[in-house]
Every structure is written in structure tokens, then in C-alpha cells.
């Protein structure tokens, strides 16, 4: 059974039209991450939550926001998507019991911009 679930699997939006991607987890993990993976590139960390504490990577564009209303859910909001934001967006979780704990990934949402 999937433990990190991302919806939708595929999302198409128009240039400049806000879009929200969703991630839920059944693992009760403290930490949730959002990564961006462009075609044939390495996943790149955008931000993460440790419980309610939000941590933004220094090079994450302001266009990207996130919300975590409870332990199980985390959302990625892209306020005004540009063509360069077309990518796979991956959600991952870890327990928070130490930096050595492995991360569990969802199957991603592939975002296309028209």
C-alpha cells in the first residue's frame, strides 16, 4: 500500500494560473519535503517542514509556497507558473528521528504548463 500519496499524478495548467499539488502520508512522519525534478536532472529540494516549522531553501523562487495543515498533508502552491516550472514534483517524508533516517518518496506529480 502506498505510504506517500501524491495527487494528482498529472496536472496541466495554463501559464500564470495558480496550481496546487497535494501530498499525504500514512507514516505519521514528522518531516515532509518537496523536491522538483526536471527532465533528466537530479531532484532539487525546494523546502521542507519539520512538524509545523517551515524551512525554505535559499534558491527556491518566491513563486513556490507550501502549507502543512496537519501531520498527514502537505501542499505545494505555485502562484504564477511559468514554462520553466514544468517538472515532476516529488514529495518525501522521514521520521525526524535523526538525519540518518531514510526518506520515502511518493510517485510524484508531473506538471505541464500550456
Amino acid at each position, binding site marked *: 500500500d502506498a505510504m506517500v500519496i501524491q495527487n494528482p499524478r498529472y496536472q496541466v495548467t495554463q501559464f500564470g494560473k495558480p496550481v496546487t499539488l497535494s501530498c499525504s502520508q500514512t507514516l505519521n512522519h514528522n518531516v515532509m519535503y518537496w523536491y522538483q525534478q526536471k527532465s533528466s*536532472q537530479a531532484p532539487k529540494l525546494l523546502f521542507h517542514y519539520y512538524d509545523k516549522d517551515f524551512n525554505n531553501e535559499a534558491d527556491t523562487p518566491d513563486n513556490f509556497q507550501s502549507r502543512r495543515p496537519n501531520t498527514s498533508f502537505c501542499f505545494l502552491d505555485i502562484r504564477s507558473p511559468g514554462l520553466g516550472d514544468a517538472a515532476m514534483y516529488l514529495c518525501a517524508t*522521514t521520521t525526524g528521528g535523526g538525519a540518518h533516517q531514510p526518506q*520515502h*518518496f511518493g*510517485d510524484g506529480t508531473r506538471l505541464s504548463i500550456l
Partner: protein
Amino acid sequence: QKEVEQDPGPLSVPEGAIVSLNCTYSNSAFQYFMWYRQYSRKGPELLMYTYSSGNKEDGRFTAQVDKSSKYISLFIRDSQPSDSATYLCALRNAGGTSYGKLTFGQGTILTVHP
């Protein structure tokens, strides 16, 4: 210079071959070393996780870390068509400001043909 370098391939081998996948890194602060497997249109799946220099074996997979050379490897013995996927190395600091942040290599595309 990227923090983690990984040859993207593609790599094509016959079934039963031994596969060697490699990454080099520049930041000596990396303490945890992982290999993820990513099938097409899926999220990364953790294969191997090592902490210290040396070898770790799990079935047909062996992970090798050489911290002095900043070089990590994944070996796949008796490769199968089901091993066809993208293999990503991922490295993590022991500390840092981003809890458990993974720095990925670009990924190597592997095809095992019958």
C-alpha cells in the same frame, strides 16, 4: 562544479551482466550515502544506504563508499530486465540547516536487455 557528479549514461547491458554505477562528490561533509532506483513515471525507491567507507551487500546489490577518494559505487550482479531504471545516488550531511536534505546525482539510465 556540481556537488555530486554522476554519468547519466545511458547504459545498456545484456541480462546477467555485472553493472557498475558511480558517483563522485566534492563536499567532505557528506556522511550518509544512498542509492535510489526510479522507474519511469514513479518516485525514487531506496535501494541501499551506507554510512561509513567500505562495502555493504544486499542480495544482488553491493554499495561501496570510499570517503578518501569521495567516490561511491553501486554494483548489480546477475542483472535482470526488471533492473532497467534510472539509478540516483543521494548524499546527506550529518548536520546543516536543512534537516536531512538529500543532494542527488543526475541519475544513470540503465537498460538490461534479454
